[in-house]
Structures are given as C-alpha cells and as structure tokens.
C-alpha cells in the first residue's frame, strides 16, 4: 500500500509533462534570402537635393517625387516640402492614396522679396493614378498650381543644401514623364462577360517594385477587378476572391494562394489562363492554391502557347479601294492576299472593313447607292446583303472580332450616329451615353470587347458587351489628349491607339488607352485625316513594322517607312492610258 502510494505520488509528480523545461536547440534556422534586385537604377525618382539650386529642375523633380510605391508616396513628397510646411500636405492612407497625373504645360518663376520664389505651373489633368495601378479619369479640374520655393540653406549659399517647397498643393502631383519613367505599364487580362476571351486592362507598376513582387501586384490587381470603364464588358474574379497573403516566388516558380469561392475546374482553368497572360512575359511555373488546395503546377509559357489571346494566324494584308473596287496593295517583302469579294460585287465601293473569322472572311463595304447616298453592304458575294436605308455618309465599318463561330457583328458610324450591323446588313442604332450625340469615328480593338470613339471632336474608349446577340456600349471614358479636332482613330496595340487630330496643324499621335502617354507619330500630315487604320500589334503575330495607314486629302499613306501609297502598288491594275492621270488608291485597310 505504501509502495502504491509512493508510486502514485511519483507518477503524479515526476512523469507528467513538465510545467517548464529548458530551451532545446534543434539546429540552425533557414539561411538568409539573397538580396532582391530592383529594376535598374532609374527605379527611384531623384531626391530633393539632386537638383541643387536649379529651380526648374527642382520643380520637375518635385513632380516626379511621388513616383514609386503608393504607400510611401507622401513620405517621398514630404521630403521636398519644407519641414514647417509638411503638415499642409494632408496624408491619405492605403488605397486612398492617389496621384494626380498631370502634363506640365508651363512653369513660371517669380522671385519674392523674402528670398522665396513663387512657382506657377500650368498643367493638363491626365488622370488619377490609384494605388491599384489604374489611371482613372481625372477628378481634379485645376489647370494650374501655385507654390513657393525657398533655399534649404539658412543664410548660406550652399548649393548642395537644395531647395524646399513652401505652401505645397494639397495633392500628390505626378508628371506624365515620371509616369513614363518610373512606372512600367502592364496589361492584365479579364475575361469578357460572355467568357469567350481575355480583355486587356492597362495598369502601372512602379519600377521600384522588385521583380519578386510583380506577381503579387498583378494578382492583387486581378483580385481588385477591372478598371471602371471596362466593367460592362468583362467579369472580374468571383466575388469575395481574396489573395491569401502575398504571391511569392523566385527561380521561376511562383506561388499564388487564392481564397476563391467555387472550385469549378473550368473556372480554375480559365483563372490559370488569365494569370498566365496577365503575368505577361514571366516564365516558369505557377503553383496555384485555391483555399490552400494545391493545384497541379502549370508552366506559364506553355499555357500562353496553348491558349492564344487572339485567333490570328496570319500577318496583316493591305488593301485599298481603287476605282470603286477593293484591291490588294502590294509592297515588297510583305504578304498580300487576294480580293475575297466576287468580282461582280466588287464595285461602287467607298470604303470597306474585312476581318477573318473562323476560316472565313467577313466583309462589310460602304457602297455608293447613287445620288450621293451610301448603303452598307455585307457579304463576300455573289450576292451582298444591303442595308435597308441609305445614308449621306457612312464611315468605314469595323468588325467586332469574336473567337467563336457566332454571326459577325460590327459597328459603323452613319450620319453621325453609331450603328451596329450584322451579316444581314441590318443596322441598328447603338445608344451612347455621351455629352454630344455626334459620333465621328469608331474603331474596335482586336479583342472585340473595346471600342474607341470620336464624338464631338473628343476621344473616348468604351467596353462592348456582346451578350444576348446585341451589341451594347458601356459608359465611354473620355481620354485627354493634346490634340484637338479629332477626326479618325484606330487601335495600334492592346493598350495603344493611333489618333488623328490637330496639334496646331493636322497630326497623328499615338496615345495610350488611358490617355496618359502620348507620342506624336506624324505632325506634318498637312490635311485633315479622314481615314485612319492600323494593325494592332499583338503577341500572336506581332508585325510591329506594319504600323498604320491613313488617307488625307484623298491620298493614302502608309507608315514605316512613311510613304504615299502609289497606284502602282495596287495589284492587277493596268496602267491607265497615257495622258490620263491615274486615280489614287483610297481608304486603305488591313485584313487580318
């Protein structure tokens, strides 16, 4: 009994789990990760003192200062602001941090008696760069800002002390140059609302973000949903989809963990395709986890190869209208095709739009119906469908490209109104939510889900919804350009437009789909461009050298190399009898 008691005591006291033990060392922990790389040396904007006492450079640097990761933008800008005035810049937090992207037009410096300099800048508001990388339409309406600048050196004249901003504007400003220089534009993709294809969405990634975080940012963007103007045409990820922690990765293996409702295999497969394309040129393997369930590892490159963005297999072929008929244009070193139209219907044509779809060619032509009236004709012959009504003017018709075998649909502007048409040449007006009802031009993107419009001399982009057999255009988003009097537009890439207008004199500019980046392509057009077409550069058949073609003052031109399209380049045309001046090819367009 005594022994049993003793044993019980021993057991109770000694061999339970101790209340506290010594530290037990199991060996070394993990090794340190290698230092991450940044995107080159120009990832960070210059510091305050970099410009010395050069006010002009200082102001430009000040407008660059906000560039970089949004959560520290205020911090960076405040470094430029005199300490006593830093409180005048009221900070916002998290997703509310937004940069007003402006195009600097003019800066005026006025010296003051208190050794400060008043700076007045005139700007064009381009948009609001949000923390999610989108450039939203501008909210601010200011066309100028005013602040003062003083030397940071007290009493002395030390150039290295730099300058300080006094009375800073209570917003974060970012110049368009900085947007170009310290950001990298990225296309991420969303599925169209009918789920048939991926639609690009333009984002800006600060160059300061290391490569390792790119995947994380992209996935966050995808989770955050598409840009506002795209929403009518695309769908985001399922509701309440969340990125679980960060997407990580290195050495060509990327791990993404999503908390997503629904585990439909098709949906997940589409998500992987979406990710593969959104991650752009990223190579390697994607290890996707849905609610911590690991899915089979996917190779990004292989996925992109198997799931093409656009059903394009051939390069563009040039066509033009010559003497009322569609004719191929032959340029050396370029492929060219035949006229897809029956010879008997290939006449009286003013302008045309052709598109390849599922092994056939969709053709829509504006034909002369006499008395200066025009009709829309659709088909490749021998019989053409013609629109029931005739119009005084019809712009070049554009096809909305689909990836499946649905009946072709297109858009056309007739008598200043936007119409949709089908393969039976039925024309139905498309309601637009625009300040002016007058539409000048329409251009469809390669994905068929976005259009660019010119209405009232201004440029708009809008999403297209093809659900239910109809065509509806979402609320158009106005783009800011420095051109005025816009006359023609087309898509020259996924995120780029080529637009013709006037910059003092007629000019052709390249412009990003959000209007932030503008590049003059041709400033000496000489006459109003009434017809502009471009081959949208894409990953399938890049053909960057193809460029654009336009018609001005009845003469057609092509770019790269820039030259006039001569009648001699029109195929199968016999030289005109001597003495007669040959007519010019007009309304050039690409078939792709």
């Amino acid at each position, binding site marked *: *009994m*005594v*022994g*049993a*008691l*003793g*044993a*019980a005591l*021993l*057991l*109770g006291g*000694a*061999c*339970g*789990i*101790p*209340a*506290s*033990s*010594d*530290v*037990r*060392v*199991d*060996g*070394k*922990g*993990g*090794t*340190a*990760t*290698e*230092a*991450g790389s940044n995107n080159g040396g120009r990832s960070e904007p210059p510091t305050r003192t970099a410009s010395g006492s050069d006010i002009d450079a200082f102001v430009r640097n000040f407008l660059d200062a906000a560039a970089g*990761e949004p*959560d*520290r933008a205020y911090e960076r800008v405040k470094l430029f602001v005199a300490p006593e005035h830093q409180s005048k810049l009221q900070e916002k937090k998290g997703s509310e941090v937004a940069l007003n992207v402006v195009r600097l037009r003019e800066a005026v410096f006025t010296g003051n008696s208190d050794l400060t300099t008043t700076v007045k800048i005139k700007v064009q508001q381009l948009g609001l760069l949000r923390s999610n990388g989108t450039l939203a339409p501008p909210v601010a309406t200011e066309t100028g800002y005013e602040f003062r600048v003083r030397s940071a050196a007290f009493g002395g004249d030390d150039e290295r002390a730099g300058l300080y901003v006094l009375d800073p504007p209570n917003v974060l400003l970012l110049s368009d140059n900085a947007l170009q220089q310290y950001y990298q534009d990225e296309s991420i993709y969303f599925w169209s609302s009918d789920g048939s294809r991926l639609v690009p969405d333009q984002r800006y990634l600060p160059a300061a973000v*290391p490569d*390792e*975080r790119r995947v*994380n940012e992209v996935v966050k963007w995808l989770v955050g949903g598409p840009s506002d103007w795209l929403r009518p045409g695309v769908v985001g990820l399922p509701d309440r989809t969340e990125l*679980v*922690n*960060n997407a*990580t*990765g*290195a050495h060509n293996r990327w*791990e993404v*963990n999503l908390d997503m409702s629904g585990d439909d295999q098709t949906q997940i497969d589409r998500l992987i395709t979406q990710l593969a394309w959104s991650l752009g040129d990223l190579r390697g393997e994607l290890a996707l986890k849905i609610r*911590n369930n690991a899915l089979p590892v996917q190779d990004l490159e292989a996925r992109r190869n198997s799931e093409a963005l656009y059903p394009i297999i051939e390069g563009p072929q040039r066509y033009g209208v010559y003497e009322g008929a569609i004719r191929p244009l032959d340029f050396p070193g370029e492929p060219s095709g035949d006229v897809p139209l029956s010879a008997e219907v290939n006449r009286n044509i003013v302008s045309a739009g052709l598109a390849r779809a599922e092994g056939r060619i969709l053709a829509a032509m504006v034909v002369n119906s006499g008395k200066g009236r025009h009709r829309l004709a659709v088909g490749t012959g021998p019989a053409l469908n013609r629109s029931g009504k005739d119009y005084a003017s019809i712009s070049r018709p554009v096809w909305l490209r689909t990836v499946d075998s649905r009946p072709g649909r297109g858009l056309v502007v007739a008598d200043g109104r936007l119409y949709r048409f089908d393969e039976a040449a039925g024309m139905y007006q498309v309601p637009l939510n625009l300040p002016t009802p007058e539409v000048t031009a329409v251009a469809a993107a390669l994905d068929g889900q976005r259009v660019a419009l010119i209405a009232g001399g201004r440029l708009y982009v809008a999403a297209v919804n093809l659900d239910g057999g109809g065509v509806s255009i979402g609320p158009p988003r106005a783009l800011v350009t420095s051109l005025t009097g816009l006359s023609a537009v087309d898509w020259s890439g996924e995120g780029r437009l080529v637009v013709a207008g006037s910059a003092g004199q007629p000019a052709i500019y390249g412009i990003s789909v959000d209007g932030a980046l503008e590049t003059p392509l041709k400033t000496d057009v000489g006459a109003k461009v009434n017809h502009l077409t471009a081959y949208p550069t894409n990953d399938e058949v890049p053909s960057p050298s193809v460029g654009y073609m336009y018609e001005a003052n009845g003469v057609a031109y092509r770019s790269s190399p820039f030259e006039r399209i001569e009648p001699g380049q029109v195929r199968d045309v016999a030289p005109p009898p001597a003495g007669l001046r040959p007519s010019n090819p007009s309304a050039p367009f690409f078939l792709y």
Partner: protein
Amino acid sequence: MVARVHQTWRRSLQVRVVTITLVASSLLVGGFAYLIADKITTILLDSARTDVRQRVNSGAGYAAKQVSLYGQPQEAQLQETIEDTVNYLAGGDPEQISGVVVAITADGYPNVIQARTAPAANVQPLISQELRAAVASGKVASQIRTGRLTGEPTKYLVYGSPVPTRFGQIELYYLVPLTQQDRTAADARATVVATGVALVILLGLLAALVTRLVVNPVRVAARTAQRLSAGLLDQRMVVNGEDDLALLAASFNQMATNLQRQILRLEEMSRLQRRFTSDVSHELRTPLTTVRMAADLIFAERDEFDPAVARSAELLQAELDRFEELLTDLLEISRFDAGFAMLDAEPTDLVPVVHRVVDRLAGLAERVGVPIELDLPGTPVIAEVDPRRVERVLRNLVGNAVEHGEARPVLITLGIDETAVAITVRDRGVGLKVGEEKLVFNRFWRADPSRARQTGGTGLGLSISLEDARLHGGWLEAWGAPGQGAQFRLTLPARAGDRLTTSPLRLVPADAALPFGGPRDGGPLAIGPGADGTLAIAPAPAEDGHRAEVRS
C-alpha cells in the same frame, strides 16, 4: 499502538505474508507504472515536438517567402504581410479554437516592426529570454512553458525559428498547447495507477487467501494441540481431502491418539500404584494394630524378661512407632495423590503455633544440644490457614533443623506483609550442596544415603510439607550452602485463595556468604584474567585507582 502493531506482526503469519506481498508488489508495480507512464509522456512529447517542428519549419519557409518581397523593414506592407502570414499560419480563421498561437516578432527591429500574434494574445510572458536569445542567434529552439493566454493556465510547447529576410532576421514562434497531450498523459497515468493499485490489491487479497488456506488448518491444529495439552485428549482435527494439510491433520490425530493412549495407560498405572500404596497401607494397619497391642503388652512386661529380651522388646516398640508413623505418612501422601486432601482454612494467629511447635520439640532439642531461637513479631500474625497443616509443616521443618543442627542454634523467623506471611527456619548444620535444595522435597530422598536413620524421619516429611504448602497456594522453598547450613521458607497467602507474588522474608539469609567471597564493604570488584586462562573476579585492590562503572 506501536506495541499492538508489533504484536500483531509477530503473532499473525497472515499479516506478515500479506504485508510483505503488498510492499513487494507495490514497489514492483509502482516501478513499472512509473516507467510506462514516463515512456508514454516521452512519446507524446516527442510526437508533439516532431509535429510542431515540421509546422515551424514549413511556417518559417512560408514566412520567409512572404517577407522576401520586402527589402526594407520600414515598408508599410511588410507589417500587413506579417499579420497576414501569422493569420495564415494560425489557420486563417481567427475564430478557430485549436489553441495554436502563432507569433512573429522582430527583436532586431523593435520600433520598426511590431510583433504580431494570431489569435491575438500576449505571448511575451511565454517566450522566455533564453528562447529569444537562442532563436535570435539563428537557431531553431523549443521550450515548454506554462502560461495563461486564454482562460486557464496551459502548458505550451513554444517553438521558435528564425525567419531570414532580405533586411535581416525576424522570428517565428509557434505556441502549441499541450492540453491534449497533458490530458492523455494524465489519463494514461491514471489508468496505469489504477491498474497498478488494483493489481496490488488483488495480489494482497490473493496472498491473504492463500495464507488463509494454509494458516487456517495450522491454527486449527494449534488450537487442537492447545486443547490436547490442556488435557482434552479426545480433541481431533477434521481431515479434509488428501493434501499436505490433510496429511498433517491425520498425523496429528494419530499422534494425539497415541499420546492419549499412552497417557491413559500411564494414568492408569499411576492410579494403580497409588491405589496399591493406599491399599497396602490400609491392609497393613489392621495387622499392625494387633502386632502393636501384642508389642505393647510385651513392652509393658519387659522388666520381667531377661535383659536381652527386654532390649528386643524396646527395639520392637521403637520400630513399631516408626512403622506406624510411616504408615500414617504414606496414607497422608496417598490422600494428597488421590486429591482427597481438603484445606480447612480459618484465621489463625501463627505466633502460638510457632510456640507450640517449639515447645513440643524442646525435649529433642535439649537432647541434641541445639538451642532454638525465635524472631517473632510482637503482634499477632493472623492468616487464613489450616493450623493443623501449618503446625505439621513447622514441626517437620524445625525437627529437621534440630536434627541437622550440629549443636548450633536454630533460628525461626516469622514475617508478614499485606498479602502474605512467611516463616523461615534456619540451621547452621552441614548445609545443602548445590542442587540439593530441589531434591530435598523428593519422597524418600536422603542427603547421604549411607547415613543410618538415627531419628524417626520417614523420608516423606518434606514431601507432605510441600503438598500442604501447595494446598494453601503457598510456597515451600529451601536454601543451603555447604558449611553454612540451610534455611527453609514457608510463604502462605494472608487470605486463602490469593495468589502469591512476593514473600515478606528472604530465602537466602542475610549472613550467607556470597559466591566468590562477594564484595567487601561496597568495594569494587576487579574482573580480569585468572590463572589457567579462566576469568577471575576478585575485590579490586584499594590502592588501585581504576574504577569501572556499569550502567544499564
């Protein structure tokens, strides 16, 4: 109490066997139980450690990947990432109650990165400085700590691992409650203890049962033997079965039967002998009476015979007296042997009794020249005795003393206390040799068989005296030493039927010489080697200063 336990221990074989079994089995079972419980705990802890270690390793890997996106500890999203990571590693759902707490601390960046735990709890007390130091030095380390995160104090296995980042190191800690393990260990312990206790109790019961099976017949045998020894010769054991105990019982019964037969035979023989003695005595009395009457006649007429015949007549008369005396003593002895002797006790003053005896023997004493001295108290000495028998005993003792007095005085002392009276009779004759003080009470015993009977002693006097003393419940004892004479002491209870414990008088007289001479004047005795290697005890020399004291 202790004495009782000790007594029980000594007396009960069952208690001893059961106790020893219990103690031995408890120690054994306790030892095994300890080993098993300890093993179970170790296994539980080890598996918990392995499990947590894996979680920590994968967690640290995950956290390292998560924070590898940040190159500066100041980056705003880093804090968010740490929080998300901690939530993720804790299972994502802060509501879940698995109890695992995940914490990320940045001891290297105390003001830049805040520690995060999921679920939110203050884990600082649970992460000891030593563990912090170990983890901060880049080691994966663990420790068991008890603390209170939610509700009750719980034992936690705290596992820490460094998380390398691009800007330095942060630390990941898992605090996994060991409640389940603790409970399992306690359950296992309780089971083991319960089993052990049950086993021990079972063994004890078993031992008790087995001992009982063995001890019970032994007890019965003991009881039977006790009864046998108490004279109940017809007691027998019950024989059950054919086992060893049955054999014991059978043998015991056999033995008892044999004993009984033998004893009965001896009793019969003894009875026959006594009967014979009694019968012979009776049968002799009648012819003796006749012979006596004739002898009396002859003796009365002896003067008329010639001197030789007269002398014969005198001799005849004397021997007939002795014969008569002998017969009387024999009859008395046979009355004692037959158990017919009855005590006729009454309160008696012993002083007159002594005087009477002395008076009666005064003639004989005078004749042999032995003075009789008396040492009697001045007051009456009253005791409940049979005066006839006491007188007979005294007469016998004083007669013997006078007879063996060798002309030296005989001292009669009477003593009394609350419970007893005692009479000593002291002579200074030849005394008794060692061992003879017991033999003197034997029937027909003589100190020197070659010595002729000069006096009328029958050789039965002291035997009868002893029987008389016993009949009173008293003692009759003898002391003697060669050359120092002898002393007899009769001690009787003051009230008839009382038990004697002490005697008012000493058996050994005060003037008797001690063996080896004895100490003189209280001087010390020297004990040392004597001649021929014997041990010698002698009075120590006075001038020698050595003293030894013996204490008990």
